[in-house]
């Protein structure tokens, strides 16, 4: 009989949004108590997890997928006991390690070696264990030369490697990992994936939250899809990922109504209501081709006067890698004030240098210090092959990468060495 490592029963977590957004002041609390006013703010609540139940057996590696705000991270936080469930039961057997962030507790003034001990103990390692593995950790991170230098002199890449190196040398029975692989260069990501793979072969139970579908496919035979705090699907990874990706867009359209999109971020002072894709003549289009112009018209609704909003769009690959961000702020396009009402703004990209593939778009409106609207992965577009290189090239394909760059080649010199010697 297989043993259960994780048992989750009717797990529910409710956040009171007011408590997170506003800092409570004692002054107010006292004042309210004195004046006997039940001056309670509207308590908006959010069900981050809603009656979630599932089991994971010992030795299973399970991927957790879902859109931003679906409750994936909350699930890991509840399982790691960082935050407490509102109701429901959890049972986790064995020694638990949880990796919500790499390098938690690192201190700038301490050296690499000192930070290894600090971070290791924060992650629940014993000093004896760290002593035994410190050489491996330093080696894995590739920081031998700087291990006795304060990490304020480290590059961000070095810090990351050091943090992951410590985490990779934990020896837990159950491991929770949240999206820590989304950062770092490709080489290091590969190293991390290998480390996780070793964990799996060591018979450990792993719960792995990620937007990186490729990583999930590589590592996890089973995947759970969480949607708005509920369990949407649980099964073989390829099937779950396929169903998940399919929800983004049933068919290609030239326009999308964005006014009713749930799970959006931002404070709502400005909202996207609609987006229309246009071709080079300004006519609606649903076809996107590599190397051709990309034009979009975003319609928005404004509820209060807003100064200098920045509009933007993030392009993600189908596997969750952020390809690029385009925004009015980057382009230094100053919108000045927008008054309550409705409006629209046009985005024009002269050449869409994307390889043929499916991409996801996230849209946002913010200004310095404020986020008005954030639509995460709200639209999927399929970019198709085109006559890039004026029909002279060999064509484009997703297997060559995410981006294509038009290139010209010219041979400068080709010396025949045999002639000279």
């Amino acid at each position, binding site marked *: 009989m297989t043993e259960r490592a994780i048992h989750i029963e009717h797990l529910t977590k409710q956040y009171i949004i007011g408590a997170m957004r506003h800092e409570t002041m004692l002054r107010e609390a006292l004042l309210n108590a004195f004046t006997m006013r039940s001056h309670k703010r509207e308590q908006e609540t959010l069900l981050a997890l809603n009656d979630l139940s599932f089991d994971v057996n010992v030795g299973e590696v399970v991927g957790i997928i879902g859109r931003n705000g679906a409750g994936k991270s909350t699930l890991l936080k509840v399982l790691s006991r960082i935050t407490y469930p509102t109701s429901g039961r*959890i049972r986790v057997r064995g020694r638990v390690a949880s990796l919500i*962030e790499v390098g938690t507790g690192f201190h700038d*003034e*301490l050296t690499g070696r*000192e930070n290894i*001990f600090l971070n290791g103990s924060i992650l*629940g390692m*014993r000093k004896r264990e760290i002593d035994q593995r410190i050489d491996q950790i330093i080696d894995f991170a590739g920081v031998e030369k700087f291990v006795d230098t304060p990490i304020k002199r480290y590059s961000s890449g070095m810090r990351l490697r050091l943090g992951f190196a410590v985490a990779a040398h934990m020896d837990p029975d159950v491991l929770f990992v949240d999206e820590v692989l989304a950062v770092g260069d490709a080489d290091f990501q590969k190293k991390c994936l290998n480390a996780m793979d070793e964990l799996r072969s060591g018979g450990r139970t792993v719960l792995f939250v990620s937007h990186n579908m490729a990583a999930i496919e590589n590592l996890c035979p089973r995947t759970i899809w969480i949607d708005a705090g509920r369990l949407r699907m649980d099964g073989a990874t390829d099937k779950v990922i396929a169903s998940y990706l399919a929800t983004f867009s049933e068919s290609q359209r030239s326009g999308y109504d964005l006014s009713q999109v749930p799970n959006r971020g931002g404070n709502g002072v400005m909202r996207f209501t609609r987006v229309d894709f246009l071709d080079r003549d300004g006519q609606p289009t649903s076809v996107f081709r590599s190397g051709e112009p990309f034009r979009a018209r975003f319609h928005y609704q404004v509820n209060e006067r807003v100064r200098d909003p920045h509009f933007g769009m993030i392009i993600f690959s189908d596997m969750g890698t952020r390809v690029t961000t385009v925004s009015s702020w980057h382009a230094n396009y100053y919108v000045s004030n927008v008054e309550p009402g409705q409006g629209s703004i046009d985005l024009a990209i002269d050449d869409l240098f994307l390889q043929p593939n499916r991409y996801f778009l996230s849209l946002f409106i913010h200004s310095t210090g404020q986020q008005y609207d954030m639509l995460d992965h709200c639209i999927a577009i399929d970019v198709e092959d085109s006559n890039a290189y004026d029909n002279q090239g060999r064509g484009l394909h997703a297997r060559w990468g995410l981006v294509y760059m038009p290139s010209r080649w010219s041979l400068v010199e080709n010396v025949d060495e045999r002639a000279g010697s």
Partner: protein
Amino acid sequence: MNSGVRPVAIEWLSEFYHYRELFYFLVWRDVKIRYKQTLLGASWAIIQPFSMMVVFSLLFGRMAKMDSEGVPYPVFSYAAMVPWTYFQYSFPLAGNSLISNSRLISKVYFPRAIIPAASALSGAVDFFIAAVILLGVMLYYHVPISASLLLWPVLLLPLILFTTALGMFFASLNVKFRDIKYTIPFLVQVMMFISPVIYPASKLPAKYQMILRLNPMVGIIDAFRAAALPTRTIDWASLGIAIVVTLVLFAASSVYFYKTEREFADII
């Protein structure tokens, strides 16, 4: 998540014990960082109480001719300045510790009480450095060094416990009410005046003695001073009251902390 077969308090303590190494590392971090960051490093632990002693000696010893219980005023005041400096430094550190370690709290699990407790303990290193200087001050003023000075490390226990109790309570309040941090320096200042740092405990008005002694710092600081001065004996009744009040405060603060720590990660 075990549900209450064992009493909650034992559960809590055993959890704390399980994470003792993290506790140790956090103390070590606090001490290390302080000495790395400040230009003067460890000497700061001496300069602070020493310069206070000099100022107080001029003000209260020379000008106000304060009664100094039969020893030169600098010795009298420095003996109290060592435990007082510990409190003055450690209580605000512990009281703000959860806020300043908010990242840890929202990203990793461990018994939350470790943070204020580690902050309160890390100041003890300064205490020992400053205490060594006391010997020098006593030698300089030809005050005989008595064996009762050996009680100092023991007296440090109720001092740390009281600081931790207050620190835990304020740290927890601080998470919920962000304006608490402004009340901490004010409280420290008030404590200085209602504790026998500048003046001898015997100078507390007789009428209010009983109420004022409920402040554990009265009994504790006076005991530190009495243990150092050959002209004094420890007022055991006063110290006894201080210890009882400290234990009660510590228990109450722990209960409050336990009840609020569940929501730290959600609101910090």
